[in-house]
């Protein structure tokens, strides 16, 4: 059994453990922050309450997908909506911390941090960093997209917490609360940057923005180089957060069995291509379109001499006509009818049978031009061999 498949990494278990760790972190930060009147610590704790709330919402999302997804055709959007809500929440938080930090900078000396307070604050932050890094890695390892997004955000929290700790150390060493608030602004920048990236990713997913012209050209070249594929009718590529979604519509001449083989091969080839272009996860889908059969009829003038058939030099010599139905460039059926006696009868027959091409060995110019008026093209046969 591989590590990834173990019970410990099942999404449900990861969720429960994560929620417990989030609440533990919130209680520690807010408790200590209130005890030492630190807006930065309380703010970070509130931020973590938001994280816990979003994670609970994600838990609901996953439950929804698992239990109520019948008849819902856009579940791909749920992780993106979740990520977008995290991004917005982080943006709001960045604004809140930024405001508190600027206010603190404008009132220096309002607060003094002693050694015992520093010890408690430092221990709080070290525990928080350990929880953030450990839980973040744990969530990412689960592989479930919603948890992966939360895990990345959790890792970002560790960076923020380190900055906060450095701020407190500076505040103690230089007896200046301005350092704490200065670090607060650094935290604001980091939160804002992460929020922007997560928001852009979610926006690209929700709007199904193409993965780029070069990427699509590569896919097109790959598909057209695959034997059995006649033409790429349509191609759609867009991200689902980190993963790539690729939909391709192709024209093929083969039957159902050949199409099944082509579908499997194309999926495999596209997956390899996407992996080579930075999309470690991709979901390619191949759809088949029916080719235009270009159905039409071709008329052959034939001589039937005692059961031996060959292409007649012209309609005057013909005693039989063979009407062939053409589909996808091949004769699919034929019908023999007696040749008409006059040119008018022949032209009437050509019209009634909706003939597109007339073939004989060496037809007279008068007949050719008469046919041309009805939109029928004359084409000389290369041999006198009749069509089968």
């Amino acid at each position, binding site marked *: 059994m591989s590590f990834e498949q173990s019970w410990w990494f099942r999404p449900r278990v990861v969720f429960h453990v994560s929620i417990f760790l989030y609440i533990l972190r919130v209680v520690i930060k807010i408790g200590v922050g209130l005890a030492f009147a630190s807006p930065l610590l309380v703010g970070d704790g509130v931020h973590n309450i938001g994280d816990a709330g979003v994670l609970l919402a994600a838990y609901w999302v996953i439950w929804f997908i698992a239990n109520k997804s019948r008849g819902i055709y856009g579940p791909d959007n749920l992780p993106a909506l979740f990520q977008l809500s995290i991004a917005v929440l982080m943006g709001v938080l960045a604004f809140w911390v930024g405001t508190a930090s600027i206010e603190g900078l404008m009132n220096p000396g309002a607060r003094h941090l002693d050694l015992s307070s520093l010890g408690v604050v430092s221990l709080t932050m070290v525990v928080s960093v350990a929880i953030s890094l450990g839980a973040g890695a744990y969530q990412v390892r689960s592989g479930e997209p919603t948890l992966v997004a939360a895990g990345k955000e959790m890792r970002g929290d560790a960076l923020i917490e380190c900055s906060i700790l450095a701020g407190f150390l500076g505040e103690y060493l230089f007896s200046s609360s301005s350092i704490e608030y200065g670090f607060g602004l650094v935290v604001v920048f980091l939160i804002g940057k992460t929020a922007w990236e997560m928001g852009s990713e979610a926006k690209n997913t929700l709007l199904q923005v193409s993965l780029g012209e070069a990427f699509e050209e590569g896919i097109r*070249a790959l598909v*057209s*180089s*695959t*034997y*059995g*594929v006649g033409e790429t009718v349509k191609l759609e590529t867009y991200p689902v957060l980190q993963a790539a979604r690729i939909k391709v519509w192709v024209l*093929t*001449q*083969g*039957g159902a*069995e*050949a199409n099944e*083989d*082509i579908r*499997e*091969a*194309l999926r*495999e*080839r596209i997956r390899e291509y996407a992996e080579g272009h930075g999309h470690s996860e991709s979901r390619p889908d191949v759809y088949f379109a029916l080719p235009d059969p270009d159905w039409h009829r071709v008329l052959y003038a034939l*001589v039937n*001499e005692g059961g*031996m058939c*060959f*292409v*007649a*030099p012209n309609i005057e*010599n013909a005693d039989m006509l063979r009407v062939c139905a*053409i589909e996808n*460039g*091949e*004769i699919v059926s034929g019908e023999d009818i007696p040749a008409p006696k006059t040119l008018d009868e022949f032209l009437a027959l050509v019209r009634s049978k909706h003939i597109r091409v007339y073939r004989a*060995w*060496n037809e007279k110019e008068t007949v050719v031009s008469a046919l041309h008026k009805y939109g029928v093209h004359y084409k*000389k*046969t*290369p*041999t*006198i*061999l009749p*069509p089968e």
Partner: protein
Amino acid sequence: MSACFPECVRVIFDEYDTHVPYAADLAERLNIPLTVYAPIRPEMVDLAGELLHRTPSELDDEMIRSVKDEVQKHFREPERAGTEVSLAELPRRQENDAGILVSCETDGNHTWNVLSPAGERRIFRTNKGPVLIPLGDGMSSLSAAHSGIELARRIGTKVLLWHTTWKNPLEHDPNPRKHVCPAAEKIIREAESLGRAAGVLDEDCRVECAATVVESIIRVALRSGASLVVMAGGKRKKFGAYPDRVRSRNCPVPLLILAREPS
């Protein structure tokens, strides 16, 4: 064991260009002549000649010229093309004739090396895909390897050797190559050394524990972008020989089935 070193490509003429473009491209790339058969009974020619007031030989010449003109269109360099047109039936294959017949009718032509182009008009698409040679555990596989390697060398591409095996319950190594039976291993090694000697083999034979042989051959051909699959005629099985089953599954990749050797 005989190897296929084609000296001529043959094709039966049809007005709807089903096989002629592929045959012309193959002949041109191998730099060997193309013989086109347009079988017309002499009695037909006599009768048509009377109607047209021409001698049968005049009519024959005209038809040959006409067919040749149609075929030449498919060559990139028509002036260099060595095309011969015959108004006779496709002859029976001579014992030493290693020529290739380009035709979709693989079932009725077991005496010929039949190449079914699968709707393709050219050997290569955008890239020069390798020649796939599925290997079994019989000596006929080596015949396919000889032919496939020689063809690959002459058309300027690589070969891809492939074998599928049952899992050996006594072997715990996940590497499928370790599960190959000794008879097949011998064939694989020989084919690998032939490919390396010809400079057309870049990787060891791919071995899989595939669920089904026929589907796996087609899928590996498609996945690897192979431009041609070369298979020996093979033994008849309950549901037909493997190459015939690959063909009847409408393999989208051109397939060369070598003539069955007389038992």
